[in-house]
């Protein structure tokens, strides 16, 4: 572990931001103010932050329908995200994308994605751009256990291997593709699948920020150095349903409570840095308070922000038409 105090504070701030953002969306969604449907990332923070801590703004990520965490970890503006989720004109996508399509191309956030398995080929494209223009950038494709069974994921991994692209495939295996257990839906072992494409892979405890961070660091460095694609299989868990309103009747009764008590990535992180005396509790508490204020502002701002104008319906379909 070579993270500085500033890095650790940044990591904790980012993970806390995701957690509080998602818990707030969860609470607000229940009031009926948020249109559509949202898929919350709470519980998986160590993945997004552990990976994205190793990326810069010129690096790209392709995300999933459960994308808020990736957005925040990649640096997206939280107020803009919240406004987007509320369908406001001031949203990151001007209210036209919503939760499933938040993107910030200037930050290399190529979009959450409403299509399971949609992102992996796009990440290959970003990696191809980096390779062709010799920018030194890398791309990361986040995908869930559902996406891991899509043909696009297999095609993207093969293409990345054949073209030796600077891309890292991150499988966020939270145990459930919608209501279906990954233990049932994934035939064989994802690591062996990667190996079959000639892509080195490693299985990591996705609740452990440090384990994720170090594995991602190595994979991203390998990509940046021209070593080609890598694969990370992260075992982790989501605290909320597939979407808000999912009663999660398919999960064991005490499953989430137990995870929160024993395997929570934020708690594990705090314990680790406090025990190693890397950060003191007061500093961590201060981060939490700071984030709480940020989320409160973002939520108030989003609720007060104007809706798109009728004329906005017809714009942004084409650059020119």
């Amino acid at each position, binding site marked *: 572990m070579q993270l500085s105090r500033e890095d650790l504070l940044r990591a904790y701030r980012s993970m806390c931001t995701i957690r509080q953002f998602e818990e707030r969306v969860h609470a607000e969604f229940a009031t009926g103010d948020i249109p559509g449907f949202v898929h919350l990332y709470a519980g998986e923070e160590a993945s997004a932050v552990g990976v994205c801590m190793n990326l810069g703004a010129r690096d790209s990520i392709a995300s999933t329908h459960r994308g808020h965490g990736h957005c925040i970890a990649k640096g997206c503006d939280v107020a803009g995200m919240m406004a987007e989720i509320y369908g406001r004109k001031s949203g990151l996508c001007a209210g036209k994308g919503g939760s499933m399509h938040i993107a910030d191309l200037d930050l290399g956030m*190529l979009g959450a994605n409403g299509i399971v398995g949609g992102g992996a*080929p*796009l990440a290959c*494209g970003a990696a191809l751009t980096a390779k062709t223009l010799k920018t030194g950038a890398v791309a990361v494709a986040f995908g869930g256990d559902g996406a891991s069974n899509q043909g696009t994921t297999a095609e993207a991994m093969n*293409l990345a291997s054949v073209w030796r692209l600077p891309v890292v495939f991150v499988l966020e295996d939270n145990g459930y593709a919608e209501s279906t257990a990954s233990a049932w839906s994934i035939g064989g072992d994802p690591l062996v699948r990667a190996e079959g494409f000639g892509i080195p892979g490693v299985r990591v405890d996705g609740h452990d920020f440090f384990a994720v961070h170090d594995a991602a660091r190595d994979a991203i460095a390998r990509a940046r150095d021209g070593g080609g694609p890598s694969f990370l299989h992260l075992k982790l868990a989501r605290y909320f349903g597939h979407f808000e309103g999912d009663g999660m009747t398919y999960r064991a009764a005490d499953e989430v409570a137990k995870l929160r008590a024993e395997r929570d990535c934020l708690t594990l992180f705090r314990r680790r840095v406090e025990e190693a005396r890397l950060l003191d509790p007061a500093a961590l508490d201060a981060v939490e308070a700071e984030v709480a204020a940020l989320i409160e502002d973002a939520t108030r701002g989003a609720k007060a922000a104007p809706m798109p104008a009728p004329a906005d319906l017809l714009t942004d379909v084409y*650059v020119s038409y």
Partner: protein
Amino acid sequence: MARKSFRQAVNEAISQEMARDPRVIVMGEDIAGGMGAPGEDDAWGGPLGVTKGLMPQFGRERVLDTPITESGFIGAAAGAALTGLRPIADLMFVDFMGVCFDQIFNQAAKFKYMFGGKARTPLVIRTMYGAGFRAASQHSQCLYPLFTHVPGLKVVIPSSPYEAKGLMIAAIRDDDPVIFFEHKMLYDVEDEVPDEPYTLPFGEANLTREGEDLTIVALGRMVTLANEAADRLGGQGISCTVIDPRTTSPLDIETILEEVRATGRLVVVDEASPRCNMATDISAQVAERAFEALRAPIRMVSPPHTPVPFSPALEDLYVPDVEKIIQAARTAMAAGGRKAA
């Protein structure tokens, strides 16, 4: 200026744009050919030789052979377009859209809108279409109506070598995703094509014939047939306007309406399957906006609603031909009222 085939015109357009802009790359199955194989490099230059010579000129880094993995490489092309390249991806036969359509219509087509206008997706997908090649049901379709249906895509259907070069250069320079349809039967057709780069505008129909009695709208390869039909009808005293829309998205409906208002009669020739094709779309728009100008029912010349058959005996029956266009024109002329003085 020299006579060039449709194939050469497309090749020259791509080559000139690759020379002009280092961000332009091409990718596809067998786009150079022979990758990893013991024989020649640039073995194919695409299955029908359209991209032959590009790899030796621009290198493997910009002319990328792909595995047979349409979802993978079409998606990669979309991602590359989103991040700064200007890829030209070869979908080979448009029939193969079935295995990669998500990457086109859910991803590339929608980036700009769903990201609130911030995205640019300068992607060209080249693809072969059309019957007449004895290629049967999975290699002969005219699926441009499906792409035309999707907001965010532009759809280009060039009708001649001259049109192909100008429209291809325009497609490559366009910042939106463009689906570029190449009819297999047109590749060997020759035409005067300027050596210099030039562009043809999207959404501006071309009048290939100007007449007074009847308007014929035709797409892609059908334009040649419509021209021939118009010339023969002209010899029989029926003077026809022939409109080549060039692009179905954007569609220059205004020019079509203008000509229908001038002639009062409309025949639409579309090689695509007859339900929800361009003929029905154009007819509906004309009926909605220029009904009062019509002096006879609109005639649509399309294939029957069947898959494309294999046997030459059946395929020749399937595809619209000059006789069918002439027949439709005669029917339109015979029906309805006289031209107002």
